[in-house]
């Protein structure tokens, strides 16, 4: 499989760059790499390291290990979220939706959406908005002329809901998480307007300028190259589109910070072991939170990518930060 991937990448770089010196029927194995022109070496340079929690690992390995972590936790993910955050994660996600305030007809891309929490909330919100609009229209239409009534009937027959239906696409690199999410959707009967795609946040399988809103909730710290994920977010958003990111961040208040640290390092992995039978995954989780940049630095990263009006709200004293930016 590695050989076919190499073939594939070779073909892609040949298409994208004008000239690449490629060995004819290159020898398989690591020695084949040295034939590549230096410009195309980037994808194979695994001498660069990155962090995996408090460990240092080669970049190529991080994605694999993160995949393993989420494959292990997928079945218990929602239960663990409730246990670890004492249910507060629901409030965080509800806040995200309120700040987003999506209008009917909006298209959402939820990256690293896994079990689909944000997408479900989005569809619910839009549905209740629609109901509110309908009620408002009905109330204002109390005294109608015959012409108005016939217009309403014509419009209803012509096309339900007039403007576009809103749509939510959940994209995640991990098949297990999406499977759990899809099962949830089917059991809650919420599959209308919802799509599931397995994809890489650093290389989204979507065309340019397709989405009104891009969200990533508690997923961006697991991405190996955060700046690439941000670039892709900018690409797939329409002009005027909004980027929103919920992520664990730094707590300013020292007392709260100490409490939070104790809770994170002493209680969460134990909960992970007791409930999910997996200490190490939850150890990775709390460590990866510590390695993620703080509010200001992440804001700078988002601005550097090309988003405007970037701001953040601290939730629960800074445990979670909601960053938002616009593509103009």
């Amino acid at each position: 499989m590695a050989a076919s991937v190499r073939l594939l990448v070779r073909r892609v770089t040949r298409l994208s760059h004008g000239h690449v010196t490629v060995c004819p029927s290159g020898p398989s194995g690591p020695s084949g790499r040295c034939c590549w022109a230096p410009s195309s070496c980037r994808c194979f340079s695994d001498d660069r390291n990155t962090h995996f929690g408090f460990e240092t690992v080669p970049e190529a390995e991080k994605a694999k290990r993160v995949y393993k972590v989420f494959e292990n936790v997928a079945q218990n993910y929602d239960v663990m979220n409730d246990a670890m955050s004492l249910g507060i994660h629901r409030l965080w996600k509800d806040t995200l939706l309120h700040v987003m305030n999506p209008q009917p007809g909006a298209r959402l891309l939820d990256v690293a959406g896994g079990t689909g929490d944000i997408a479900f909330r989005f569809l619910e919100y839009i549905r209740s908005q629609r109901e509110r609009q309908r009620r408002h229209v009905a109330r204002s239409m109390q005294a109608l002329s015959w012409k108005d009534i016939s217009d309403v009937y014509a419009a209803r027959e012509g096309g339900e809901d007039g403007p576009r239906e809103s749509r939510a696409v959940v994209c995640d690199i991990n098949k297990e998480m999406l499977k759990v999410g899809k099962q949830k959707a089917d059991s809650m009967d919420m599959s209308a307007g919802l799509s599931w795609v397995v994809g890489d946040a650093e290389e989204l399988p979507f065309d340019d300028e397709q989405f009104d809103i891009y969200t990533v909730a508690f997923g961006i710290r697991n991405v190996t190259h955060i700046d690439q994920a941000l670039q892709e977010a900018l690409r797939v958003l329409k002009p005027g589109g909004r980027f929103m990111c919920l992520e664990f961040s730094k707590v300013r208040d020292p007392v709260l910070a100490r409490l939070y640290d104790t809770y994170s390092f002493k209680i969460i992995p134990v909960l992970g072991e007791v409930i999910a039978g997996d200490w190490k995954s939850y150890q990775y989780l709390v460590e990866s939170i510590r390695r993620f940049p703080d509010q200001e630095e992440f804001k700078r990263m988002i601005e550097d990518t090309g988003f405007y009006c970037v701001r953040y709200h601290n939730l629960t004293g800074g445990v979670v930060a909601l960053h938002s930016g616009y593509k103009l």
Partner: protein
Amino acid sequence: MFRGVFGEFVTATVRVHRSLRHEALSRVVNPSSLFVRSFSDVKDEGGGAAPPPFDTGLLHFLVCPLSKKPLRYEAKTNELINEELGIAYPITDGIPNMIPQDARLIQKDAPATQE
């Protein structure tokens, strides 16, 4: 010191009860997912076609992650084909898998390596 003792106590308890607890808990935690799984199995068998239908509405904005070009849905093999690069992305359980490493190379008459 108390913290160390407490920690040891916890790990000991956990280790002793882990197998029992894990089994019991998995029995507790999984029935809902089991129920859903069996429900969807029944649905699939009832429906006849083994893979659930793929939502072709997605094709409007789904593209190949490598070349960003549109894809063609092949119903027979249940895959999304990028003609230009000659790769096919599989669809499992109605969810398209757009990771390049999981894609299949389509062998054409002119071998791919020659060009």
